[in-house]
């Protein structure tokens, strides 16, 4: 099936997160992965193995940078030392794009090292928009913000999460990393329809998808990235492709690391679904991908 959606956003194909557990395998075997995503903070070091392998992988693959410490919704001033280091890393990596999360991560200099949710209200929108503009001006590029998983909702919220994201993206002229697993997790935790979320986001703003596994506790779900992607998330991915068109997609794995072949098998599933929804023609760019 063809979606017919016209878009000029870059389409990298099917990717994986670059993790130290797989450095040697990736450098030695040059697997058929279209691109890799790095966690930016893991490479904000002076030298040694992390930067060595980053450079080796970069020689053969496009890379995107994904951060966890920008704290775009935080109320401390933006961390200039962090931004400087982030920019230095972009100069080294020359990534296709740079992303972080729609969240706050700490206050009064105390970093909680978590993706803390924001209330979906006008005050938070105004606050985030101004900060996104500062970051984009400093980095000299648009950034992508990812929808984080959440386990709480605030009584102060005045709108849906997708309305919140959309207004920020439109006012700040930034882009979105649409995490399909996070939409599933938050939908289960808060009782909304994930399809409403997908339909509520403007397609042209979505440049990247994340898919991952989670831990299901019945009454609630926690985003743990330590399991394979589950069927409902694959189904949601197909729906997202129908709505958003071709979007560079990747699988995140951050714990309970399986043999690399298992990740490659998941990557194959990612590609099969994209081919089914978008048509084989669009996937031709992915000639190096496994069937």
């Amino acid at each position: 099936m063809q979606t017919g959606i016209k878009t000029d956003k870059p389409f990298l194909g099917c990717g994986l997160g670059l993790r130290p557990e797989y450095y040697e395998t990736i450098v030695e075997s040059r697997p058929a992965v279209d691109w890799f995503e790095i966690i930016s903070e893991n490479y904000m070091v002076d030298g040694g193995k992390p930067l060595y392998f980053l450079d080796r992988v970069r020689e053969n693959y496009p890379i995107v940078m994904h951060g966890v410490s920008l704290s775009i919704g935080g109320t401390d001033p933006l961390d200039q030392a962090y931004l400087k280091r982030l920019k230095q890393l972009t100069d080294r990596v020359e990534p296709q794009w740079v992303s972080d999360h729609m969240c706050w991560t700490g206050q009064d200099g105390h970093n909680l090292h978590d993706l803390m949710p924001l209330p979906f209200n006008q005050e938070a929108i105004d606050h985030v928009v101004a900060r996104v503009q500062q970051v984009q001006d400093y980095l000299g590029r648009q950034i992508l913000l990812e929808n984080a998983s959440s386990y709480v909702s605030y009584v102060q919220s005045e709108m849906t999460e997708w309305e919140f994201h959309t207004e920020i993206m439109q006012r700040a002229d930034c882009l979105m990393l649409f995490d399909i697993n996070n939409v599933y997790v938050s939908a289960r935790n808060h009782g909304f329809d994930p399809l409403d979320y997908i339909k509520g986001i403007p397609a042209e703003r979505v440049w990247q998808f994340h898919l991952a596994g989670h831990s299901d506790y019945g009454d609630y779900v926690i985003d743990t990235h330590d399991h394979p992607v589950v069927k409902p998330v694959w189904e949601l991915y197909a729906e997202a492709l129908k709505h958003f068109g071709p979007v560079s997609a990747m699988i995140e794995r951050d714990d309970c690391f399986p043999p690399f072949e298992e990740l490659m098998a998941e990557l194959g599933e990612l590609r099969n679904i994209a081919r089914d929804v978008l048509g084989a023609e669009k996937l031709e760019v992915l000639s190096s991908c496994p069937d």
Partner: protein
Amino acid sequence: MPGLKELQNAFKRNVVNGDEEFGKYINSTKAVSSDVRLAIYGNAYFSRLEEALESDYEILKQLLGEDVFNEVCIAYTHKYPSHYYSLRWFGQDFPAFLGYQPGNGEHHWPAEMAQLEWSFVGAFDAADVMAATEADAAIIAPEAWAELKIKFHPSVRTMVVWWNTLARWRAAKNTETVPEPVRLLKPAQCLLWRHELMTQYRSMEADEAIALQAALAGANFSELCGALAEETQDQEMVPMKAAGFLKTWLSAGMIVELLA
């Protein structure tokens, strides 16, 4: 209604100290109360920071046992909240928290083990600089040697061990039987560095440690020999000894430049 700043402050207090006041700003559902929802963030906070410490202090955790290590981590997390954008730096005060006292060795073995493991962390991702070689030393004019200064690789670090920490670390790392902790009859010198991508360590004799400390502090070759002479009975051996150390350091990739 609180504004964004107050809301985040209250949330932070809830995560770190379990302050229940914040619960009134969170929606409960029939299936999941606000308390259960907030506990997800509180649990994640402590477990994420403990994971970071586990990764830096793997052998210490193994030797202390999971329960003790967990207690220590929680206490540390309360006393030294992270002020870093990367978890890479969160564990840097752990040796001091455990009472590490490099000057007089009046610390217990866990503090020293923590310092050793933190030194490895530092060597692991220290800046990359191309190592100098013996060929670089060979081209130095004889008259330039007295003033020669040595620039070391950024990963080079030393520490004094007052316990059998090195032997215990090595045994644990190799999954061999770990000896009981004992204080050494006299403190020993330990050297750590990274050669290419591999972190290295070894113990040093007292005279090598003196020469290395002098060179690291900026002494030139003549001053280095002077420091060595104070500890050497046979004075004629001093220049040869110093040259031997230099050769050893060069072949180990510890030196990046010889400044003649």
